[in-house]
């Protein structure tokens, strides 16, 4: 198998340029989709027969929660690649995932709490899914804490990569906690095998939101990635050329 594409892809100057060129291609569609999804979710979708209009929180809650998990997974995968092939660009990607993932975890927690007040009568219960999402936040904080505690960027990259890989075990726990333990939290109704269990008019805006959030995440990741690449390659000649221009 020919691996040159892999190394070319991982070469910092190439990736830096590519990321710059790709950003708008993710940013604008995401803005459009999120706007459309929001309109669809808040205005067009019919009220839920049980929860009334309260269910509309789902259009921000579920995509945020989904991103919080996706970001961790990507972070762990990037970290593993960086560790195994000593690839700086992959470490840069992992480092860029963490703050984004942490913020979307916060968003999922807060929107979930706001939703929980009318539905369960309290902002917080010690439910497995809620708890494991909180643990996910702690993991993100631990990752960023470890990273900032180590001065040398190379060492910080590799040490935090080990942590990211070890912590990935929490992702399936969050994802499947609802099924493994009996939980008061909603079981997956969209992302499950077979037919989704909610109606299409409600589902469509949600799916649009999922895609929009994912694209947004990629766009933000690319912007951060470029910064991280510059930080790691400060002493490289190509950086001088790029920055001077």
């Amino acid at each position, binding site marked *: 198998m020919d691996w040159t594409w892999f190394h070319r892809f991982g070469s910092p100057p190439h990736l830096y340029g590519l990321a710059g060129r790709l950003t708008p291609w993710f940013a604008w569609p995401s803005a459009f989709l999120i706007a459309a999804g929001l309109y669809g979710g*808040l205005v067009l979708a019919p009220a839920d027969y049980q929860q009334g209009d309260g269910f509309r*929180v789902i259009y921000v809650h579920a995509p945020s929660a989904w991103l919080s998990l996706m970001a961790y997974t990507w972070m762990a995968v990037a970290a593993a690649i960086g560790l195994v092939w000593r690839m700086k660009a992959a470490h840069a990607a992992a480092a860029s995932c963490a703050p984004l993932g942490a913020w979307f975890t916060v968003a999922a927690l807060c*929107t979930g709490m706001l939703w929980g007040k009318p539905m369960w009568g309290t902002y917080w219960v010690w439910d497995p899914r809620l708890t494991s999402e909180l643990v996910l936040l702690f993991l993100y904080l631990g990752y960023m804490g470890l990273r900032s505690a180590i001065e040398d960027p190379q060492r910080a990259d590799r040490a935090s990569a080990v942590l990211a890989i070890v912590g990935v075990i929490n992702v399936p726990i969050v994802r499947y906690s609802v099924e493994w333990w009996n939980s008061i939290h909603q079981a997956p109704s969209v992302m499950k095998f077979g037919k989704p269990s909610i109606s299409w008019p409600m589902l469509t805006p949600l799916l649009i939101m999922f895609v929009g959030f994912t694209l947004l995440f990629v766009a*933000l990741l690319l912007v951060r990635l470029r910064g991280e690449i*510059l930080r790691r390659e400060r002493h*490289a000649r190509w*950086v001088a050329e790029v920055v001077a221009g």
Partner: protein
Amino acid sequence: MSDFLSMGGYASSVWPSVALTFGIIAWNIVAARRSFAAARAEARRRLAVEGSP
């Protein structure tokens, strides 16, 4: 319109959630751009101090 804003009595969860999420999105956009700009400025400063490598 006020019907829409009241969200069938759930205004106090729906609107804060939406506002919060978009607040976080906005902050992330600002922060991402800022982090890139900071890295760029830093590289420029180094270039000015140390000259081309």
